């Protein structure tokens, strides 16, 4: 199972990513979400369906078993009732045969009198005394059967052979379905047998059976061993009709037979009735479609359906959340990797810059000293032709040296490891101080500052001097980018509980997408000529300083609209934060 799931997962998920490479990012995550949805649906729905199916069959088996037990008990109970009914009649007949002599019973008057006393016995139609010749010598009942011969009757032979019998239902002389209970007695001292018999209507038997409470069945009747109906049946016809009986049930106890038809399943219970030639039959059609079963099925289907819908909603939601989280995590990771790559690139450039600056400083010092010495010699020498020209040339060399010196010193400053001295400061105050340094410059160049400072910002633990440097660099850049009448908006706000931020926006020409890639790199400048020619170190120094303070800096820009620099600074300064020790930039001194 686990192997299969692993295989499924590999097939669905791993291969998804393998195969998804040519996909666009959006399609890839959509595919992943769909696969996840499928797997989770299969995993969730399978046990639900299995449990529901098991419950269905288990309950069906239980219900069937319970119903069979019920009908079995009913059949046994009904059999015992009929048996008791017959036994009662047999006892009455037996009592008469034992109590009275054949002479008494051969007396018509006596028999009639006896019968009139027995009439209350349920179903007793008549009573007759049959002499050893098989002739009904006396008869009490509604028919004229006195003197009728019964020698060839099966029941008579059986009664003589077994001393008593209960016959099957038959028509006889009266042409009415009935059965006989007969008792045989031997005449004392003679090999002659006389028989006392009583007749009972089949209709009475049928009515008696009808009174037996059979809630488990919807048809109850008697058949003989040949399958002929002894009482009328709801489904199988009248007395004498044949009941379709393929084989006789076992004689002991109750036998159940399930017959599956096209439109319903029938359950039949067969029970032999002791001391009679009858088999009791109980029939229940469509028993499995009982109300309990139907309501169980409805409930089961309802529960499974609701569970499936709820599970699917949860799965759908989970798959969506997981998909988005994974996408967010991937994007965050990619952004971090990109930043690490950028930082690492800057670090390499920083190290290179520092190395170059150092190597250049020594020959620069020689040029400077040589030019200086030449200048000194000119000072002490007398006038000569071109002396002023020499002064000019040396001045040119020294100017160039100074320009180089500014660059190398800034480069070394950029790479220099500076300790951060944290103190508690108010960001808004630092912003105001920095702007006060720039007041005259902005007035002179016709640039307006707008402040959107959030009041009640928490004090932050940071290096004030370095923070001033950061803000000065960015605001100076904004001023350089703006024409007369331009505007710089400086806003501050808090970012959650750990950071505060400052946003510097200008409505200058903006930065092209191409330039944005290199914006924090050393020596990258767009100010290549003119009054404010740049060294390309300002923003890279700013980047390093922000990192050193444990902050983050980002830039957004739209050509023709303007640029915005966002700086986030931690409220609490922690040793070892990004760049605090300069290790992130790799700009170490030397």
């Amino acid at each position, binding site marked *: 199972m686990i192997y299969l799931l692993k295989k499924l997962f590999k097939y669905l998920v791993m291969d998804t990513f393998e195969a998804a490479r040519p996909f666009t990012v959006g399609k890839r995550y959509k595919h992943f979400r769909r696969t996840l949805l499928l797997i989770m649906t299969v995993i969730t729905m399978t046990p639900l369906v299995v449990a529901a199916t098991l419950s269905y069959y288990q309950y069906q088996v239980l219900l069937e078993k319970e119903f069979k037990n019920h009908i079995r008990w009913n059949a046994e109970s009904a059999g015992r009732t009929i048996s008791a009914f017959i036994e009662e009649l047999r006892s009455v007949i037996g009592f008469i045969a034992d109590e009275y002599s054949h002479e008494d019973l051969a007396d018509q008057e006596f028999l009639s009198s006896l019968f009139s006393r027995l009439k209350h016995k349920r179903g007793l139609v008549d009573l007759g005394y049959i002499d050893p010749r098989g002739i009904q010598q006396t008869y009490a009942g509604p028919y004229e059967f006195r003197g009728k011969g019964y020698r060839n009757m099966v029941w008579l032979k059986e009664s003589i052979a077994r001393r008593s019998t209960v016959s099957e239902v038959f028509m006889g002389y009266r042409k009415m379905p009935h059965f006989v209970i007969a008792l045989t007695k031997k005449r004392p001292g003679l090999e002659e047998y006389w028989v006392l018999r009583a007749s009972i209507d089949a209709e009475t038997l049928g009515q008696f059976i009808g009174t037996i409470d059979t809630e488990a069945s919807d048809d109850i009747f008697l058949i003989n061993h040949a399958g002929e109906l002894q009482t009328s049946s709801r489904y199988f016809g009248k007395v004498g009709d044949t009941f379709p009986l393929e084989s006789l049930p076992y004689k002991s106890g109750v036998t159940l037979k399930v017959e599956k038809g096209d439109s319903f399943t029938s359950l039949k219970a067969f029970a032999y009735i002791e001391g009679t030639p009858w088999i009791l039959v109980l029939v229940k059609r469509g028993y499995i479609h009982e109300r309990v079963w139907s309501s169980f099925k409805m409930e089961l289907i309802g529960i499974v359906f609701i569970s499936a819908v709820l599970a699917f909603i949860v799965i759908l939601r989970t798959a969506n959340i997981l998909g988005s989280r994974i996408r967010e995590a991937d994007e965050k990771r990619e952004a971090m990797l990109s930043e690490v790559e950028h930082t690492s690139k800057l670090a390499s450039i920083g190290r290179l810059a520092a190395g170059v600056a150092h*190597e250049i400083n*020594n020959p620069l*010092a020689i040029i400077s000293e040589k030019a200086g010495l030449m200048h000194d010699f000119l000072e002490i020498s007398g006038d000569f032709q071109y002396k002023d020209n020499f002064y000019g040339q040396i001045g040119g060399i020294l100017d160039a*040296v100074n320009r*180089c010196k500014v660059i190398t010193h800034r480069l070394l400053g950029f790479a220099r*490891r500076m300790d951060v001295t944290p103190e508690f400061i108010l960001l808004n105050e630092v912003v105001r101080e920095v702007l006060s340094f720039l007041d005259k410059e902005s007035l002179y160049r016709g640039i307006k500052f707008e402040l959107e400072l959030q009041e009640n910002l928490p004090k932050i633990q940071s290096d004030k001097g370095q923070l001033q440097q950061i803000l000065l660099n960015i605001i100076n850049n904004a001023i350089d980018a703006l024409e007369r009448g331009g505007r710089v908006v400086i806003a501050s706000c808090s970012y959650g509980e750990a950071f505060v931020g400052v946003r510097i926006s200008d409505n200058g020409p903006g930065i092209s997408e191409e330039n944005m890639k290199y914006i924090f790199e050393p020596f990258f400048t767009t100010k290549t000529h003119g009054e404010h020619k740049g060294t390309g170190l300002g923003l890279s120094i700013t980047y390093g300083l922000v990192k050193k303070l444990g902050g983050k800096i980002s830039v957004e820009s739209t050509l023709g609209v303007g640029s915005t620099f966002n700086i986030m600074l931690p409220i609490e300064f922690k040793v070892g934060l990004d760049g605090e020790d300069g290790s992130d930039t790799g700009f170490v001194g030397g």
Partner: protein
Amino acid sequence: MEAIRVLLVDDEKEFVVTLAERLRLRGFDTTPVVCAEDVFALIRSEGSPDVVLLDLKMPDMDGMDVLANIKLFDPSIEVIMLTGHGGDPEGVGAKKGGAFEYIMKPIDIAELMVKINQAAAQRRRGLSGS
């Protein structure tokens, strides 16, 4: 007043000789040295200078070690560290190691003269005080 004796130590010969000449023109008694090992031989043979201009990084010996040895030999000698290298931490380190001042290359001659005069004045004050 006796000219201030300045010993210049740097592995860049062109630099150290030229700077010595410029300082000499400005009235200092200068001796350029390109090898750190020669510093102590010179001090032994010619006596302690007032000020030593010492390069921080040299191929044969680290400037900080030379500084420590000079101070060990004669604590009154004032040392001004020179380098084309590094920044404030090195300056702070040099000062902690006993240097009078720290100047980055390329140097400004006027600024250097001020520092040398201050260093020499400090040394002479110290000597007269003792």
